[in-house]
């Protein structure tokens, strides 16, 4: 077994404290291992939503950010995986920018379908793309290859990456050693999590085929407002809780959409996640406000 497999095997506990079997024996990663790359994911803030499922989405986002800013270890960055706003309105982007601007860590933002109603211009103006003009980009940090994809630009197919983005991804990954840890972000899940509710990316399999040669790939998405984990080969998937409100577990309701809970139950359903990487294996910790 390759070393990466050992770490992968024990790393995906979501338990907060990771025990890793290494050449030195069993170590408690949090105490004994050098700090790995560490970041935070937030998602689905839906600023502008004013319904019973969460009458004050700004305050749950603010509370989430307060928790992130108070983390004992500062994250390398915070990524928002889309649906920052509810209806792509200028005042919603203004409010979102103001609140997200209180994060101490660098912010990366990718759009959800609620952010590009009527076109992507308002989102791009509020959160200028990090590289290029297409919206998708990649970067390397601390030995990890990060890729931010956009699968909400084609309204008739949700999600959809499109051939231009897939070609870009193929070029982006070409030449990387298969041992390089890869972390991929996109709003809509890249696999068919629940296609009946549109919780899939129609051409996601093409992206996953390009990623399949790597030893350790972590794909982090939003869109479905709940944590669901999944694995295909060396690719591990995890969707994130929203900061706004939960949606039903797939198949348990007639339709997706906001689920109204008592306030304390709502706080147990929204929040953020931390991700720490050891040798490519992601230790994911989902933290809620309640």
């Amino acid at each position, binding site marked *: 077994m390759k070393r990466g497999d050992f770490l992968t095997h024990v790393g995906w506990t979501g338990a907060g404290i990771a025990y890793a079997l290494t050449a030195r024996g069993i170590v408690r990663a949090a105490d004994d291992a050098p700090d790995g790359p560490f970041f935070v994911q937030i998602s689905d803030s839906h600023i502008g939503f004013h319904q019973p499922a969460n009458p004050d989405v700004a305050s749950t986002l603010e509370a989430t950010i307060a928790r992130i800013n108070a983390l004992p270890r500062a994250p390398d960055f915070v990524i928002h995986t889309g649906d920052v706003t509810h209806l792509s309105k200028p005042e919603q982007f203004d409010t979102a920018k103001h609140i997200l601007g209180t994060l101490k860590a660098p912010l990366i933002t990718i759009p959800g*379908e609620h952010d590009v*109603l009527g076109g992507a211009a308002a989102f791009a103006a509020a959160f200028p793309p990090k590289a290029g003009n297409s919206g998708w980009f990649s970067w390397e940090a601390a030995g990890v290859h990060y890729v931010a994809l956009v699968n909400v630009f084609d309204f*008739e197919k949700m999600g959809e990456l499109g051939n231009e983005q897939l070609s870009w991804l193929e070029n982006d990954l070409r030449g990387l050693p298969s041992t390089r840890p890869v972390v991929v972000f996109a709003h809509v899940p890249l696999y068919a999590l629940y296609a009946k509710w549109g919780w899939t990316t129609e051409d996601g399999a093409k992206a996953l085929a390009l990623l399949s040669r790597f030893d350790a790939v972590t794909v982090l998405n939003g869109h479905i407002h709940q944590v669901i984990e999944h694995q295909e080969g060396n690719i591990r998937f995890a969707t994130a809780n929203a900061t706004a409100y939960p949606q039903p577990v797939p198949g348990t309701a007639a339709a997706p*959409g906001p689920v109204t809970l008592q306030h304390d139950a709502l706080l147990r359903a929204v929040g953020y996640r931390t991700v720490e990487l050891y040798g490519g294996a992601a230790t994911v910790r989902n933290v809620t406000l309640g």
Partner: protein
Amino acid sequence: MNAFLLALTLALASGEASTSDATATIHIKNFAFAPASLTVPAGAVVRFVNDDQEAHTVTAEDRSFDSSGLDTGNAWAYRFAKTGRYAYFCALHPYMKGAILVVTAGSKK
């Protein structure tokens, strides 16, 4: 063309319309258009009302009309001046589909 005919033509052109002129209503509820299929005479104004907590849109497949984001309780109306079949979907949830069949005024369905 005299002023009366010009005004009549403009009034009956396809386009966004006042919800108070609507003669038919389609409700958006539980992530579906109801009724999903509707027949109206040419010139009719159809009102779309979002009854869901989630936002939706009414977007023509050929992009000839688009409500943009409809928040909970919001209504949007469109006048269908010409006969034909108008297929539409929700741009936030594209598996939500509907169609308006516009027939000659006075004809049988």
